[in-house]
């Protein structure tokens, strides 16, 4: 059995290696991506969107569809793990082993977590808000923000986290993020533009179309941020407790 697995993976690797021959050379200036697309983004993104960091502009504006479905994929992953692992009824008391580690007693971890978690949350919001100017954005900020909650639940226990954030709240917010993203795109339709073409927002926000695209990007980044944060918490809670939601890592 192992040999078959080995053969399959080796064969797959060989096929992929052969396939890479047909890809354009790494960093080839003559490849279509470099001759047409990249130059367009580099030259036009600043005046079209007024976002200095054109990675953000490409991610959130030019390829908004792509990012929207990435967010949806993250949401689906969270839902899937929840569906597979979550058990509504608790184990009977006698089945529960006494915990080997002294969870919830560790003063050092608790104090450190209390110090660091607010800083992490602020840093996450900073990364989110400065995605236009420095590396960052919704995904990165969401990961850091989710990690701050996970840090709390590692230092204390899962119950402490779930008493601060109800399960219902977590799932509500993770859906809300996708809704914000799609909603900002859909309102563009109502305003007479194309889906996810934020320049239509200029009619509501009373700013120029270029500014509107910049603000629209911030809006959808917020949506991504919320989804990633809460899906991360949900994934951790499900995976660490095996779907029981009773004890953390």
């Amino acid at each position, binding site marked *: 059995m*192992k040999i078959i697995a080995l053969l399959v993976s080796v064969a797959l690797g060989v096929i992929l290696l052969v396939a890479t021959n047909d890809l354009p050379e790494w960093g080839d200036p003559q490849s279509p991506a470099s001759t047409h697309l990249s130059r367009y983004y580099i030259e036009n993104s600043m005046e079209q969107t007024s976002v200095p960091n054109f990675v953000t502009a490409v991610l959130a504006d030019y390829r908004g569809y792509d990012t929207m479905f990435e967010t949806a994929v993250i949401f689906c992953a969270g839902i899937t793990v929840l569906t597979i692992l979550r058990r509504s009824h608790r184990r009977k008391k006698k089945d529960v082993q006494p915990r*080997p580690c002294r969870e919830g007693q560790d003063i050092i971890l608790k104090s450190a977590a209390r110090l*660091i978690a607010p800083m992490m949350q602020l*840093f996450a919001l900073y990364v989110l808000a*400065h995605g236009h100017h*420095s590396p*960052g954005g919704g995904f*990165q900020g969401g990961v*850091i923000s989710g990690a701050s909650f996970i*840090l709390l639940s590692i230092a204390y226990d899962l119950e402490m986290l779930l008493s601060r954030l109800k399960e219902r709240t977590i799932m509500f917010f993770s859906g809300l993020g996708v809704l914000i993203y799609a909603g900002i795109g859909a309102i563009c339709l109502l305003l007479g533009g194309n889906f996810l073409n934020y320049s239509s927002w200029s009619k509501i926000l009373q700013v120029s179309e270029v500014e509107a695209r910049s603000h629209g990007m911030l809006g959808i980044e917020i949506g991504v941020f919320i989804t990633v944060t809460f899906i991360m918490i949900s994934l951790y809670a499900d995976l660490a407790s095996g779907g029981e939601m009773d004890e953390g890592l």
Partner: protein
Amino acid sequence: MENYFVLLGTALILLMFLTLVRVVKGPTAIDRLIGVNVIGTKSTLLILIIGASLGRIDMFIDIALAYALLNFMVSLATARFFQRNRSAGMIEKEEVEL
């Protein structure tokens, strides 16, 4: 000065590889965790060194800060995980599976 930073980065990578020897040797899972923790902390510095040698340290500082925070998280989570299943303290047998 940029050249000095490249030199410093190389020297750090050298020592990180030496630490990797401990990760490979073990003998227990937690011994490996020591090495991983140290390498992770030093990666923060490597990110800063890349930033300094490219002259854009203001861009890389955010990444370094995020990395430092997440590395702390990883250490805590892994330590907690190994605290939970006690088998981590046992010296591992040679059982390499394909």
